[in-house]
């Protein structure tokens, strides 16, 4: 109940895209990964092509565009995964563009987890800087 209440208040008071930029500003390790091709990379456990220990959003912040994933998978069918439920707070538009090129990926799960994660991050941010 508390979480839902705070989350609703955030949506009311703060511009969504602006808040994502502010969170990204606090990330310590910006990567620039663009125009790369990942083909037939397989992980037996997690992250067919790329595994991020904590938060995959850090991997994709900054100029991270136009990467192609072909036939990359782990046992869940994911080409990219992280240590916790997938975090892609950087941009939902980039997420959608990337996922379309990754075979055997459960679209709905990625998007759902991302949405939930963003809400959690927003709550933390809101509470810390009040």
């Amino acid at each position: 109940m508390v979480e839902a209440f705070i989350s609703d208040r955030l949506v009311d008071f703060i511009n969504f895209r602006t808040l994502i930029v502010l969170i990204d500003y606090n990330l310590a390790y910006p990567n620039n990964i663009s125009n790369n091709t990942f083909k037939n990379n397989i992980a037996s456990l997690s992250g067919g092509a790329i595994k991020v220990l904590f938060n995959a959003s850090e991997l994709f912040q900054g100029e991270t565009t136009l990467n192609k994933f072909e036939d990359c998978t782990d046992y869940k069918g994911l080409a990219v995964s992280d240590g916790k439920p997938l975090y892609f707070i950087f941009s939902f538009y980039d997420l959608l563009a990337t996922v379309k090129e990754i075979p055997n990926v459960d679209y709905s799960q990625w998007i759902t987890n991302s949405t939930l994660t963003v809400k959690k991050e927003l709550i933390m941010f809101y509470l810390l800087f009040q």
Partner: protein
Amino acid sequence: MKLKKKIVTDTVQIIASQPMTIISGTFTNNKAFNKGGSIYLDFQTLGLTTSTFENGRAKHGGSIYFRQISRFYKF
């Protein structure tokens, strides 16, 4: 650390402890027993452009393994 047009074949793994930039790299048939078939990045920044990773194998991260955390989580 900078690598330009570096062709790496067979089983080679780069373990980076400093910021690393790779431009037009080709990583083929690299395998790791556990993490990062081609690259294992430890708390550092990676710049990766126009590179190709093919046939990478590992338990975690067939091509690249990022071991990074953010300041955000240190609050």
